[in-house]
């Protein structure tokens, strides 16, 4: 990710000195046009990104009270959030979910991408479309479907287990809820990540494979020694996005809440907690503080993932 931040555009300013026909008037025109072209995006960005963010910070410094309305509270909301054991239980729960879900999904995605890229597959096109199809399903619908499938009485898994005289796991119970949620997200996003990795694999030069074949590398050797290292940037991208998505877990637990109200409480994930605090308890300041604490956690984790991978991935 680091080199994205450096300027990779050709010959900045140098064009003038090298006599490439870049007159100062042309540069001035480019500058004006450049600013005009980015203006619509950045104006919207300012209004719907920076302004809400600043407002959220402002809100987080105030508390809503039953008597006396909204009063300045300094960092009290943050103190309350950091000391809130429910929040940290939610954070730990979400991390456990992430440790389970992200590697499972990405390994599956990688294997699918390698299989699609191997050229050894029959009906390759069918597979390519098939694995991507769940991405067209909104996560709300995915959660609704899996909610029915998980059903303890009428769900097909329970029916099948019943038919062979066994009992299926109680998918929506305290014990199974995290794996059950992880499965819904894996089902929805596995194919999407597989296609990103597959597209990256298509970009790897075939010459590298041929060279490896000369060196006596088998198909698995080529996958391990050449293909996977070559798509490291794409893997990192999917990893970072998955980590960010995981920590923001909201939709699936919110839908499952109606199915298992005793298992999924209002503070099940930090995002759910922020939502409930704002819209059920009208504690906007506290909700904003939770969001900022969560934001900080996300930044720390994304940064850690990027740094660790960069260190491991650097050429020896």
């Amino acid at each position, binding site marked *: 990710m680091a080199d994205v931040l450096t300027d990779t555009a050709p010959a900045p*300013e140098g064009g003038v000195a090298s006599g490439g026909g870049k007159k100062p008037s042309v540069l001035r025109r480019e500058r004006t046009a450049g600013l005009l072209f980015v203006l619509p995006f950045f104006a919207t960005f300012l209004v719907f990104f920076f302004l809400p963010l600043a407002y959220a910070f402002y809100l987080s410094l105030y508390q809503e009270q039953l008597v006396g309305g909204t009063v300045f509270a300094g960092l009290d909301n943050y103190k309350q959030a950091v000391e809130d054991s429910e929040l940290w239980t939610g954070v730990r729960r979400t991390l456990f979910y992430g440790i389970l879900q992200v590697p499972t999904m990405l390994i599956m995605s990688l294997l699918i991408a390698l299989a699609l890229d191997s*050229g050894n597959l029959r009906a390759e096109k069918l597979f390519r479309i098939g694995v991507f199809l769940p991405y067209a399903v909104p996560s709300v*619908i995915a959660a609704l479907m899996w909610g029915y499938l998980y059903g303890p009485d009428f769900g097909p898994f329970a029916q099948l287990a019943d038919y062979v005289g066994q009992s299926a796991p109680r998918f929506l119970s305290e014990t199974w809820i995290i794996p059950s949620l992880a499965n819904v997200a894996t089902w929805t996003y596995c194919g999407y990540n597989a296609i990103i990795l597959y597209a990256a694999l298509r970009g790897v030069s075939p010459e590298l494979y*041929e060279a490896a074949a000369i060196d006596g590398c088998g198909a698995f050797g080529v996958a391990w020694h050449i293909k996977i290292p070559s798509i490291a940037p794409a893997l990192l991208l999917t990893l970072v996005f998955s980590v960010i998505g995981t920590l*923001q877990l909201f939709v699936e637990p919110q839908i499952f809440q*109606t199915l298992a109200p005793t298992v999924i409480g209002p503070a099940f994930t930090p995002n759910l907690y922020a939502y409930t605090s704002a819209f059920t308890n009208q504690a906007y300041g506290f909700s904003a503080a939770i969001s900022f604490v969560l934001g900080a956690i996300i930044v720390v984790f994304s940064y850690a993932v990027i740094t660790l991978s960069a260190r491991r991935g650097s050429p020896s």
Partner: protein
Amino acid sequence: MTAGAPPASAELVETDGPPVKRDWRPHAERRSAPLTLLMAAALVYFFLPLFWLIVSSTKDNEALFNSFGLWFSSQFNLFSNVKEVFTFNDGVYGRWLVNTTVYAVVSAGGASILAAMAGYALAKLRFRGRNLMFAIVLGSIMVPATALTIPTYLLLSNIGLIDTPLAVILPSLVSPFGLYLMKVYAQDAVSESLLEAARIDGAGEFGIFWRIAFRQMAPGFVTVLLFTLVATWNNYFLPLVMLSDPKYYPVTVGLASWNSQANAGGGSQALFSLVVTGSLISIIPLTVAFLMLQRYWQSGLGVGGVKA
């Protein structure tokens, strides 16, 4: 590494290496049955819930609970279910579909155009601060949705925009990831010399963008359009927060509200088959779009992945 060696042909591999024929080119005729079987197992996993959805939408509410979930029951109620979905609550479901379409098309179209213009400028035009701008946009991807959505709700409620379509559309116009993709795409796809030639011919900067750069960016643009379309079509959190009048709901929020009514019971048992059939209908448009626009999402995803 032997990467510097001249491009090895298939013949070269045959004579040089072990007596195994290895051809790593894309469409080698070496089909593997075990691999195909493994992938078929994965495909069963991906298709299973969708198959269940199709099967279940042919059942009435009673059969939904009394028959085996993964096979058809004796009756075929698909058409009466569809009719029921579109007539229940004065046909509000049809409105939800229209709302979703309007929100998705307007938001995705707007977001993609903003991203394309800004991405082109950041990639091809020289001006002060553009690296900083790009870095800020990249960093913004990490901000959690709630951190923005809840204060946006409060801000919009101050100016009376809550519970209107604009409350959903306006915040969706910002797509940092779209800008990232467009910038990376424009960097490679837009020819510097064509821009120069057009400038010498006296073309205006906007004309250059529209008639030259945008054409070259078209495949990337369609990809961004497709992804922002999916993102807004599938969006749940933002409309859930912004809207309280069911007539403005998109289909995701609407179905979730039916679902919670169904689970709350109270004589609304019949809602379950509505949720199931409604879900099936709601995923058809995007599925069809994906099947038709395959080459765009496949090539476009490569841009983001390889260049990250």
